């Protein structure tokens, strides 16, 4: 493990100038956190769906990054990401259609009001 108090200037310099796996993972994590935050806080159905897409793409980024930094690179990570994008596209299609139907039916897309499955 890296001790943050023993980091030298060179270490920070190298991290800032050499783009590596950690950078991609960091970016993905930030994206994921933003998506999750949005999903938990936004009241609209469409923004919530968009946040879900954000989280999905964070994961895709992870897949591609890991694929690039494999010791013996092949295409499995990229393939997985392609699958994931296709599924995500389908999910968006269904999700938006559902949102549309919900709006037609309930005249609202506010998630707080869509609590008909309350126990």
């Amino acid at each position: 493990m890296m001790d943050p108090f023993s980091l030298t200037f060179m270490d920070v310099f190298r991290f800032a100038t050499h783009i590596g796996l950690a950078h991609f993972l960091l970016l993905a994590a930030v994206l994921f956190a933003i998506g999750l935050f949005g999903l938990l806080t936004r009241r609209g159905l469409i923004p919530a769906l968009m946040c879900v897409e954000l989280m999905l793409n964070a994961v895709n980024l992870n897949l591609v990054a890991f694929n690039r930094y494999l010791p013996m690179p092949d295409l499995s990570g990229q393939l997985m990401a392609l699958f994931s994008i296709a599924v995500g596209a389908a999910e968006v299609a269904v999700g938006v259609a559902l949102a549309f139907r919900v709006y037609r039916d309930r005249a609202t897309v506010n998630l707080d009001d869509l609590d008909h499955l309350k126990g």
Partner: protein
Amino acid sequence: MFDFALTHAWLIPLLPALAFLIIGLGTRRDKDASAKIAITFSGLSFLLALGVLGAVITRPIVMADPFVMKTLWAKVGDIELSMGVLVDPLTAMMLFVVTTVALLVQIYSVGYMAHDPGAGRFFAFLSLFAASMLGLVLSVNFMQMYAFWELVGLCSYLLIGFYYYKDSAREAAKKAFITTRIGDFGMLLGILLVQLTFGTMDFVELKTLLPTYIWETGGGILTIIALLLFIGPIGKSGQFPLHVWLPDAMEGPTPVSALIHAATMVVAGVYLVGRAYFLFSALPVVLEVIAWVGGFTAFFAATIAVTQRPFKRILAYSTISQLGYMMLALGVGSLTASMFHLMTHAFFKALLFLCAGAVIEAMHEEADIFKMGGLRERMPVTFRCMAIGVLAIAGVPPLAGFFSKDAILAAAAEVSLPLYLLATATAFLTAFYMARLLFVAFFGEVKPDCPAQETNAWMRWPLVILAALSVVSGAWGHFAGFGEWIFYGPVGEEHIDWLIAGTSVALTAVAFYLAYEIYVMKRWSAYEISRRLGVLYRLSYNKYYVDEFYTVIRNTFVDKLGAVLYWFDLHVVDGVVNGLARFTGGLSGVLGLAENGQVQRYVAVFYCGVIALTAYSLLIAAMLLAVVGGAF
């Protein structure tokens, strides 16, 4: 020919049962066809019964060595239940009596039920009734007997409640069924104990097993078994204290009363004790109980009969009294006297009831004997038959009752003086109340609006035949050696004890004279006498308040117990179930709070879970690394 009858004895109960099925399924709505079928099948089974009687006499089959035919009926675990026929002189006599009375009652019913739209149903039930009783008589083991015993009870229920649109008939039917069920329950326990103790219920096997069993283990459990078994006859044969159903049983059509009181239902109990006499007679305590129950019932019922007014109710109490006689005879150890009296009683009691039916029908359903009078002139044939019946039951020589009652009195006198005195007092009372019945209903002035006329031929001829049987059956039994034919233990010598016979005949004469003076010559006012007797009269007139006593018991104990059990059911049994439901409902309410329908709450909870799982798996991984870290 006799052998054919003997080997086909199983047809005797089967034929009336078949008649029941044919009528019940087919010709129920056709009165005449139903009657014809019922009488034909009864006639056939009567002929077969005659054949069996002939076979028993000619072969001869004796009490010690019965003829048995049986087949497997049901197999439960190791217990094999068989069904079949057991023929010995006792069976043959019963078959003869039952088929005779049943046949005559059915012929009589053609006339009696001529204007009843339900006659088809009636004949169906009569046939089934006869079939059940015949099956009971032929039983080879306790279980078969119990099955037919219950069938008899069912038929009595159906027939007593025949006029189901009348409240009183429904009530009487229920009363008869429930009261006898109380007895049947005790009997069932007894039967199961027999099976547990001996491993068999077969009469013949039990008879051979019993002496060794008593020799080895004594009579303790046997006494309990026998007493339990005896509860059945107490209910069925109307012994005190379960006699209350019998007087009410007259709610059915009169031919049914004749059948119930004479040949089928009530003698089943006496017959059971007779059939299992090898068991009862081995236990002196039980015999004493039987004797006292019988003796007390005989006297008790006779004192009630003295004051009753409805024609059939007098006869009903007389039946109870006579059944008490039979039990008494069994209790003092004389199977012969008991069965002899059973036979003669069947004839003269059937006669009396059929006469009652004729009279009551002629009087347009008026049953109170004090509203009759002078019927002697209006219904001469019925009167003569009735007179024969009365003389027979009163024990006037040489009619049937004299011989059989004398046999019982003699048997009682040998064993116990109190029982003998009780029986003699009963004989006196019997003569008195029967004379009263005869004198009040048939003598004196004809009431001005009396509609009575002689009955039709269908009803008259059975009366005449039964009257003839009532005359001859006693003397025939006495002189043809009934006692050497049906007996248990050493053969009883048939002789008339002239002291006992003379006493009872003298008492009978006194009773007749008294009744004549009171009810015909009106020398003493019956009303005055009843007033003088005060409490005694009221006790007797109200049947010793036994029914009222049972009502009080029901109201105070049974209803209260019912209330307690109802409370228990409502609050404990239902309470547990309802409580469980309420608990589940409450729990779901609590859990339902989490399900608030807010998607974002679900997402948050879901991610908390994910984080927890991740943290956990990281922890595991760290621990693994700490342990095996060196290997990587």
